[in-house]
């Protein structure tokens, strides 16, 4: 989103955004691409193809019906344990702050998703530290998918031993919670020169088979490390064969795609699919194309927690989409 578009968006809609995908509206291309910087955050609800999002500053005014649901879970991402450069010399401290934030949520999440880059260099002690810190979180179950930093040097063997014992292939799997079908995908293996994230033929076949028996009304949550939509291919922020995966999900009325990797919150809605990326708990990265490279971005120490965060997701039965709320660690 260009600065100009961002200003236009902010100027037009202030706190509340209303997007009608079926008609004209704010976005003529038929989708919303809205970047909510951590520290501002967004709360989104979609009903009948209309997406409503509120800035986090308005959340206290929302009724409990909008903010609560049958199922609540939290997404954390990119903890990069072991990273110790100026962008954040204390990634353990900020992960602990994220856990504290989770433990203070008004609707206690039932479980956590970690969308990868648990470790920075795939070192055993890095994984151990994260496991230890997450033990103090109220939700006890954590579902993981690997980031590229978790599968260094050993093609993901250690990751599978630690987190993927009951998974398929390089670590993909699915499970059901209160009528919602969750699919964890792996798009960080066997990357080809010049290319983007890759799911691969074997995983795509598995996905097709995994979802084909499900009713169209089943709410779907798909999570993977690298975005399953083209955020910024120049920086590798996309997945080569995600279109094929999304084709298998087309029949479902509500699909929520949760990713990490880009260390900033971003959202896009396309038809029945809501794409969302979570903030990192470790360090921020620049907006697409706004720097020479996607490397860690150094912000003043007192601002760091405002650009790190967690994502809280609520499912309300009968509503078309899940409500996704980002909140910063500040």
């Amino acid at each position: 989103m260009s600065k100009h578009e961002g200003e236009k968006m902010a100027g037009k809609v202030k706190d509340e955004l209303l997007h009608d995908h079926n008609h004209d509206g704010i976005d003529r291309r038929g989708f919303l691409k809205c970047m909510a910087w951590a520290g501002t955050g967004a709360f989104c609800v979609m009903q009948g193809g209309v997406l409503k999002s509120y800035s986090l500053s308005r959340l206290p005014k929302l009724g409990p019906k909008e903010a609560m649901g049958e199922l609540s879970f939290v997404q954390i991402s990119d903890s990069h344990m072991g990273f110790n450069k100026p962008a954040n010399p204390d990634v353990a401290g900020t992960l602990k702050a994220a856990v504290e934030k989770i433990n203070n949520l008004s609707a206690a999440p039932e479980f956590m998703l970690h969308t990868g880059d648990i470790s920075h260099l795939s070192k055993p002690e890095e994984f151990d530290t994260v496991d230890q810190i997450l033990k103090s979180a109220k939700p006890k179950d954590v579902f993981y998918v690997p980031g590229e930093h978790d599968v260094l040097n050993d093609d993901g063997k250690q990751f599978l031993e630690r987190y993927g014992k009951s998974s398929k292939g390089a670590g993909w799997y699915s499970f059901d919670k209160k009528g919602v079908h969750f699919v964890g995908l792996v798009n960080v293996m066997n990357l080809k020169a010049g290319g983007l994230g890759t799911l691969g033929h074997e995983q795509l076949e598995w996905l097709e088979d995994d979802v084909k028996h499900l009713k169209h009304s089943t709410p779907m949550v798909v999570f993977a490390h690298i975005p399953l939509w083209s955020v910024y291919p120049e920086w590798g922020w996309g997945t080569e064969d995600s279109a094929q995966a999304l084709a298998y999900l087309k029949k479902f009325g509500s699909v929520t795609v949760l990713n990490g990797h880009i260390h900033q919150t971003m959202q896009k809605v396309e038809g029945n699919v809501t794409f969302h990326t979570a903030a990192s708990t470790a360090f921020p990265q620049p907006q697409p194309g706004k720097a020479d490279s996607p490397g860690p971005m150094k912000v003043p120490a007192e601002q760091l927690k405002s650009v790190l965060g967690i994502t809280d997701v609520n499912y309300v039965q009968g509503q078309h989409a899940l409500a996704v709320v980002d909140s910063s660690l500040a």
Partner: protein
Amino acid sequence: MRRSVLISSLGAALVLGMGALGAGRQRFELSVQQKPETAEVKIDNFSFGPATLTVPVGTTVSWTNRDDIPHTVVSTDGVFKSKVLDTDEKFSFTFSKAGGYPYFCSIHPKMTGKVVVQ
């Protein structure tokens, strides 16, 4: 014109003569030992610099990661493969055969480079 042709022929004959005696070859090996060819590629801002490096046969190329993020140096054709290089870590490979050697970072595959060995 004629004179220069004559001179270069003479030079060639001289070199051939030395080669036949084994002296020229010995001297060449000696010079390799004293001054091995080296070249450097720097990894900065998620890119290899220079992106294309041309070196003579026998050159040892070293890559140094200057980013705050780890990278790898992996030959597209499987000729060489570094371990993960954290900040300031180095990987070296000696190219003993002429040819083109494309490579990339297996963590950030948009990062690509090439070594041309002549």
